[in-house]
């Protein structure tokens, strides 16, 4: 059984979407997280760094932003800037929700 699994797993698999909240400090290090520990931490760190980048570049463009949202087909990421860091909410968007989550703007 284990032998066959080696050949037949993987390609058609689907990665679980992250659910929960993370906070990152100004260097992009994760300070707190409610996302499952099974979820790859490097992906969460990447989200944190990208979000901080977007806040900092918006300031450079003289359009400082307090909140940034990235809406994908099946995941919604909302980030709020904190003093020096950010709090990031990760919501999978599924049809199992009673009402679809609307983006604020």
């Amino acid at each position, binding site marked *: 059984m284990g032998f066959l699994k080696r050949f037949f797993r993987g390609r058609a698999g689907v990665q679980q979407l992250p659910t929960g909240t993370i906070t990152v400090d100004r260097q992009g290090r994760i300070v707190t997280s409610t996302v499952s520990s099974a979820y790859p931490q490097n992906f969460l760190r990447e989200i944190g760094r990208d979000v901080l980048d*977007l806040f900092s570049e918006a300031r450079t*463009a003289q359009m400082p*932003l307090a909140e940034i949202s*990235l809406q994908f087909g*099946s995941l919604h990421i909302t980030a709020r800037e904190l003093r020096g860091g950010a709090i990031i909410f990760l919501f999978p*968007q599924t*049809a199992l929700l009673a009402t679809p989550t609307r983006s604020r703007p």
Partner: protein
Amino acid sequence: MMEKRHKILLLDDDTDWLTLSQEMLAALPSRPEILTANNGKRALSLLESEPVRLLICDLKMPRIDGLQILSIVRRRYPELRTVVLSGLEDEDFRSRAYALGVDLFWIKMEMQRNSKLFIECLESLLGRDDEPGFRGIQSKSLMDIIQMECLSRSSSVLRITRGPLVAKLWIQDGELIDAEAEGARGEAAFRRILSWKSGTFENLPAEPEHARTIMKPVNALLLETAQNIDEAASPATPESIEQAAHRKSVWKLSLLTREGADFVISIPPEGRGEPEALGTQMITPLVKWTRHAAAIARRLGEQLEAGPVMQVTGQNLERQVLVLEREERLFLVGWPVEATGNLLEKSRKLVASWDS
């Protein structure tokens, strides 16, 4: 020579429904091979191993739901035709599914009531290649569809969707009585709709009580519109090009004012022309931020397997901004913070009208 049989994959967690649908699809004239899956993982395995032409997918399923499957298949199999067959009669799900690029969205009840039309639509999807035209009836132009409806003296409401733009045509006893599109009503709206080259077309029940705003016979309107299209296609002089560019700028400015947006920046891919902005002087830094935001979003979407980027938004105490992508161009739309209503929908409409 053996005729090529297309494969259809039916995905639904309800096995009774799968059996019922399988029997119904057996009535398709092209006799496609029907594959079934009762969960997303099984469906993805089948798509991996079989050359499937059409995926018919439910939305509400345990573990991996239809929207996530659609996000994945759109990226992995861009040529695959997709149909959503859902029990959820919800406009939000409908627009989210269309935003994911599905070809058709049908409610299960409606499919059972109008199975003949459903079969015709599926047959059309199986047969067509990447032709322009209206989904479901690919070989016909909108003019043909309207003429067909009027000649058959039918009463119906045609709902036409082109990306985020939604238009309606009211037909009563074979006469066109009203049209609505892009904030316009009546004949102006009708002319606007006829300029659309492609879209999604749905037939809704008639509304006999609907007020009449179009008095001209439909054939006269179709003729006028055809003449206008011919004139627009004739060789242009430098003066007429300049006049047309001026008219376009005025029209865009009025569009911006009518919708209440602060600014719009239209950004071509790098090295392919200059950005075009209305309502702001801060073009270069905003273009840089928009391109960077879009690149980050695309990369994250790929890495997280979260599907295509729908939009990126930001806000502060004074302003809300949205980044949208349309036909290789990026758009940054700025709104005052006090702007109300669904700004995403308003921005999509603004962007869709921008170059039309």
